[in-house]
């Protein structure tokens, strides 16, 4: 195994084991969640990417994760790293072309509508997708989401956040992923318009934050404009790249989780298109 990258928000310390998934092992200390992940998951502000890492194949609980100024110690494995191994999670935008950007947003919308998981929030972009949800819990869930988004679009942003937070399927519920996308979108709008949306973002985060540490971690990073690798690639593709690259980046985003990537993408898209009542 070799270390591929370490997120720029990873701080020195000892992190006890928290949980394990198929491509990730999570460690938690003082509400900071660090994930050791395979290349399949990729870069993130709080990710340590290890080549040939197998998250869930181990049967024993791993020893705590130890991080110093230039080493990561994971059980019997020791990885050294330098400044060059850091993954820089902020996106600096320059020389963007509005027409290209808006064209690429339409491409992203198309990808979400045609290629995202049937149970993603892309039904907010294409009403016909609601037929993918079974009657009962799933349809009640889509009603709740619609209610929350309607509130947001009509000037009641925080009410909408309250309606969406913790709502839906998945370890990070769909509503939380949507809000994370909104926060990322706000950060992008801030840079594009030169307006200060940080207070709104902070309010959204405080309202959305609840007991789910995964969601909280994700939301906090989004609030601060710190992006995981696939999202950063998508934002840069939207600003500068061809339609083909946007489609590929969108596909990589939508491959995250059951529908998490697509849910985040939907929240991001609606925000950046100015539909979330943020002027």
């Amino acid at each position: 195994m070799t270390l591929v990258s370490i997120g720029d928000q990873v701080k020195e310390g000892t992190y006890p084991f928290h949980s394990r998934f198929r491509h990730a092992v999570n460690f938690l200390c003082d509400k900071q969640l660090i994930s050791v992940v395979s290349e399949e998951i990729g870069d993130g502000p709080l990710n340590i990417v290890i080549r040939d890492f197998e998250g869930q194949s181990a049967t024993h609980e791993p020893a705590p994760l130890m991080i110093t100024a230039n080493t990561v110690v994971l059980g019997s494995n020791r990885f050294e790293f330098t400044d060059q191994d850091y993954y820089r999670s902020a996106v600096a935008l320059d020389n963007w072309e509005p027409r290209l950007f808006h064209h690429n947003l339409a491409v992203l919308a198309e990808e979400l509508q045609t290629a995202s998981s049937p149970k993603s929030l892309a039904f907010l972009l294409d009403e016909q997708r609601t037929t993918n949800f079974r009657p009962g819990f799933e349809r009640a869930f889509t009603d709740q989401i619609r209610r929350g988004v309607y509130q947001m679009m009509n000037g009641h942003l925080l009410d909408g956040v309250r309606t969406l937070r913790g709502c839906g399927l998945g370890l990070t519920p769909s509503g939380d992923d949507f809000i994370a996308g909104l926060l990322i979108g706000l950060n992008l709008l801030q840079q594009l318009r030169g307006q200060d949306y940080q207070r709104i973002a902070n309010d959204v985060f405080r309202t959305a934050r609840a007991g789910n540490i995964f969601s909280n971690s994700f939301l906090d990073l989004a609030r601060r404009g710190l992006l995981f690798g696939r999202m950063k690639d998508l934002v840069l593709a939207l600003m500068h790249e061809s339609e083909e690259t946007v489609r590929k980046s969108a596909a990589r985003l939508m491959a995250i989780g059951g529908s998490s990537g697509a849910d985040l993408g939907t929240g991001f898209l609606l925000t950046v298109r100015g539909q979330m009542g943020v002027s």
Partner: protein
Amino acid sequence: MNVAGQIRKGAYFDSVTLMRVGTEITALPGVIDAAVVMGTKSNRAILNSSGLLSAKFDNASDTDLLVAVKGETETATQSALAAVDGLLKKAINTITTGGESRPSSLAGALNLIPGANLALISIAGRYAGDEAMRALENGLHVMLFSDNVPLEKEIALKKFAQRRGLLVMGPDCGTAIINGVPLAFANVVNRGNIGIVAAAGTGLQEVSCIISNAGAGISQAIGTGGRDVKQEVGGIMFLEGLKALAKDEQTRVILLVSKPPHKDVLRRIEKLAKTIRKPIVTSFVGASTQEDRPSTLEEAALIAVALSQGKPRDEVASRLVARDKEILRTAKREAGKRKRNQKYVRGLFSGGTFCAEAQVLFKTLLTGVYSNAPVGNTKQLRDSLVSQKHSVIDLGEDEFTVGRPHPMIDYSLRNRRILVEAADPETAVILLDVVLGYGAHPDPAAELSGVVRQASRKVSVVCSVTGTNHDPQNRGRVEAALRKAGAIVTPSNAAACNLAGQIIRYRERK
């Protein structure tokens, strides 16, 4: 009805696992609805509004995992909850032991199954061509379910495959049966000695089911995708499929199914067919009829059956003539029930081949036929959503399927249209195809019965059911349910179209 729940504290599973387990629980016998969700306040509110909230959840926290089940009976509910542990463990263990590893690439999949010789590809069309080429380069045959693969790519794939002695079934190939294994949308049919090459997906399903229901069986059913027999592609895979069946020892009779190939392609097919010793039956829906060629898919299938059993093909024609007399009797009876201004047939098809066959058959029976996918002299509908005179609609066309599941899976659009057409005072007959098999809706009878019952109060509802009793949906049960709802059910699309057309003709004579 019974609702029960479980709380799992400190249980962390990734999203894919949770969604998968939720789906599996809902599919358990006697389960009406289920949810596996984090215990947030929002989710508890949704559980409440969908009738899934258990009192156990009152003190759940955001990080608790809630399992909620609504079952037909308490036994069903408790059984489902008892299965949750196993489902969660299976989801984890299959990952840790590699029992059901999920490779994320072709290379990964080949590592897992080194002996694989076929790749079934179903991803967005713009990526599918490259993946198909990768599969071919690795020596695999390809079934390309994806559509929207560029024409140049299709040609390149097929030429490459041809040089390597491999098959490319598709693009837009929805069905095949290879060595007895149904692929994608396919039916459970008998194995036997009739081999099929088809550039028409529902055409393949129709003939393979009729063959199986008649007591014969299928050796191989090779789909090629509809574009294969057009001039540009030149019938590359159609011809390769025909050659493969000619060599296949289990195949004694060959059946070819397609919409009319381009004349150059037809010439190549005929030239190749002359070199093959096995009897070949062709059904090119919409081609000009020749005396020795069957006029319907049903007739072609039955001829293939007769030949496979060493019987003369003539007996099929006489059997169908006798059956058609019965159809006329039924048509006369139905025509008598309709009001004076009820004069049109409205065909609502999930299968494109059936829509085409309907138009061909209506050519001799009716005048003023419109379609959103016209064949021959049929006129183009101005608006696919609004019928004109006699209308036959292919609900599988793009305008109906962009962003939504295919009508063979999702009946909601067609159901709405059935009621619209039934409410039209000029509609006399609604004509439907119901296609069973893997990939199709698991309970079409439940989906359709309500609207058929409603519609049949005003119009004649004529349904063909394509399937076998071994299909997951069970053809016999579906037919019985549709009859109970008031539909007239026929064993083939051709019979249904004939009946619908004859009802109108009797109406016109009144």
